[in-house]
C-alpha cells in the first residue's frame, strides 16, 4: 500500500520531470531534429534563400556525381584525412608513452606541450600563415635543406596540402596525447606485473598488454580524429581559401562556398547529406566496436 506521501512524490516525479526536461527537448526539436530533416528536404530542392525552395527530386545528387569540384573535394578531403589521422595517432601515442615514465619536470613539460590546444583554429591558422610565409621563419629554418631563398609553402602545388596537414597535426597531437595518457593510466597495474613475471620484453608488453587494454581509447581517438579532420574548415578557409587552384578545397569548404558564396543551398545541402552519411557510418562502426568489446571482456 502506498502512503499519501509516496503518491505525492510519484505525482511530482511525473510533472516536474517533464517540466525540467521540456526546455531541452524543445531546443533539440527546433535546432537539431527539424534542421536535420529539413536538410534532407532542402537537398531535394533548388533554393537561393530569396524564393521558396522548389522541389527538383534527386537532381542535386545526380549533378553532384558529375561535379568536378565535388570529386576534387572528395579527393582533397581523403588526402587530408590520411595525413591528419595516422601520423597524429602514432605521434601522440608515442609522446604519451614518454610521459608515463616519472622524471623531473614531467608536469612542466606536459603542461607546456598542451598549450597548442588553447589556441583557436583561427589563431593557429594565422600564426602558421605568418611562420609559413615565403620570407618567414620556416623558410629561414629550411634554407640549408631547400637552398631556396623563399619556398612557397602555401601556394606551391605539392607543398600546400602538406603544409596544411602539418599544421593540423601540430595543433592536434597535444590534445590526443592527453587522451592517450588518460587511457594508459587507467590500465590496472596487475596486468603488467603478470607480464613481468612471464618475462616479457617491453615491446611485447606494449603489443600484448597495452594495446588490447587500450582498445576503448583507440576507438575514441580514431573516431574523433577522423570526424574532426573530415570537418576541418577554419584551417583551409584562413590559410589558403582552398587554393592554389582548389588543391585544398575540402568538402567542408565546398559546402560553405556553395551555400554562402553561390547561394545554391540545395546543392550545398546535398553535399552535407553526403557528409552526414559518411560520418554516421564511422560513428556506427565505432558504436558497434565498443559494444563488441564490452561483451568480450565482461
Amino acid at each position, binding site marked *: 500500500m502506498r502512503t499519501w506521501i509516496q503518491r505525492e512524490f510519484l505525482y511530482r516525479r511525473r510533472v516536474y520531470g517533464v517540466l525540467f526536461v521540456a526546455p531541452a527537448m524543445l531546443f533539440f526539436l527546433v535546432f537539431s531534429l527539424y534542421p536535420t530533416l529539413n536538410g534532407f528536404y532542402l537537398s531535394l530542392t533548388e533554393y537561393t534563400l530569396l524564393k521558396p525552395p522548389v522541389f527538383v527530386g534527386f537532381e542535386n545528387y545526380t549533378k553532384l556525381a558529375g561535379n568536378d569540384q565535388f570529386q576534387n573535394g572528395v579527393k582533397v578531403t581523403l588526402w587530408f584525412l590520411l595525413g591528419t589521422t595516422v601520423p597524429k595517432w602514432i605521434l601522440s601515442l608515442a609522446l604519451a608513452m614518454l610521459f608515463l615514465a616519472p622524471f623531473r619536470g614531467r608536469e612542466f613539460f606536459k603542461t607546456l606541450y598542451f598549450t597548442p590546444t588553447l*589556441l583557436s583554429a583561427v589563431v593557429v591558422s*594565422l600564426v602558421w600563415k605568418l611562420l609559413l610565409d615565403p620570407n618567414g621563419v620556416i623558410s629561414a629554418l629550411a634554407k640549408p635543406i631547400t637552398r631556396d631563398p623563399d619556398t612557397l609553402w602555401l601556394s606551391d602545388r605539392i607543398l600546400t596540402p602538406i603544409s596544411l596537414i602539418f599544421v593540423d597535426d601540430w595543433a592536434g597531437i597535444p590534445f590526443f596525447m592527453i587522451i592517450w595518457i588518460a587511457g594508459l593510466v587507467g590500465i590496472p597495474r596487475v596486468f*603488467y606485473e603478470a607480464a613481468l613475471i612471464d618475462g616479457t620484453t617491453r615491446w611485447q608488453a606494449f603489443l600484448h598488454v597495452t594495446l588490447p587494454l587500450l582498445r576503448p581509447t583507440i576507438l575514441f581517438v580514431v573516431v574523433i580524429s577522423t570526424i574532426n579532420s573530415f570537418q576541418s574548415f577554419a584551417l583551409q578557409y584562413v590559410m589558403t581559401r582552398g587554393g592554389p587552384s582548389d588543391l585544398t578545397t575540402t568538402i567542408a569548404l565546398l559546402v560553405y562556398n556553395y551555400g554562402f558564396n553561390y547561394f545554391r543551398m540545395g546543392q550545398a545541402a546535398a553535399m552535407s547529406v553526403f557528409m552526414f552519411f559518411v560520418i554516421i557510418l564511422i560513428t556506427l562502426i565505432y558504436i558497434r566496436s565498443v559494444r563488441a568489446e564490452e561483451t568480450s571482456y565482461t
Partner: protein
Amino acid sequence: MASPDRYSEYAPAAYTGTRGSFSVHFRQKANGAALYAAMCLGLLFFCVPLYYMFTTSFKAESEVFAMPVHWIPHSFLPQNYVDAFLAAPFPRYFWNSLLVAVIVVGSTVLFSALAGYGFAKFDFPGRRLAFLFILSTMMIPFQVLLIPLFVVVHQLGWTNSYAGLIIPGALSAFGVFLMRQACLTLPDELMDAARIDGAREVGIFIRIVLPLLKPAIATLAILTFLGSWNNFLWPLIVVTKDELFTLPVGMTVFQQPMQAPYWTYIMAVSTVATLPVVIVFLLLQRYFIEGVVVSGLKG
C-alpha cells in the same frame, strides 16, 4: 627470462599507485640525457609558434620578415596593441565574443543541469526515448547542420542579430549527457528528505542539486566557454554586419587575402584572443584537462 636490471627497477615504489604502471615495470633504460633532449626538442616544436606570436606582437612591422630571424624583438612596441585595436573595431569584436560566450555558458549550464536532473531523478512516460533522442543528436556533426540550421535562423529572422549568434548554441546534448551522469551519482534520499521537510522541487534543484553538481558544472562551463569563444564557422555565416562580428571572424576579415597584412597587429589581436583561454586554463587546469578528456570535443 627477464634481465636482472629490469628486476632492479621493480622497486617497492612501484606499488604506491597505479599511475604509469607500464613505465614503472618496463622502464626505458633511464637514459636521462636522451629523454631530456627529446623533451626539449618537443618543447620547441609545440611552444615556439606561440612564443613567436607573442614576440611578433611587439615588433615593428619592418622587423617581421627580417633575416636572419629576430627571435628576440629588436624593437619593443606595446603601442601595437593600442594601434591594432584602433585599426579595426576589435574592442567591439572582443565584447561580442565575450557576451556571446557568457550567455551561452550560462544557458548551457542551466538547461543542461535541469534536463540532466530530470532524466536522472524523475520518472515520466517517454523518458528513455526522450533521452535517447537527445543523445542521438550528438551524432549529427555541425557541418551537416550548417545549411539547414542557417535556413531555420533565416526563417526566424535572426540573421545579423545576437539571437542568431547565441540561441542555436545555447544548449548542448553533451551537456545534458554530462549532467545526467553527474545526477545519477546523487543519492535519492537527499532529495526525498528535503521533500519530507516540505521543500519545493525548484528549491531542491537550486539549493541541493546545483551545489552538488559543481565539479561537473565547472567542466561543462569551461568546455562550453572554449567552444563558444573559439567558434568560427557559425558566426562567420550568421552575421555579415561589422558591429556583430566575433573576434575570430573579425580577425579573418581584417586579414584579407588580397591586402598586405599587418602581421604585428594580427599577432597582437591573436595574443589578446588567446588570453582569456590561458587565464581559464591556469585557474582551472584540473577541470580543464578533465573536460578535454571526457568530451573529446574541440574546435
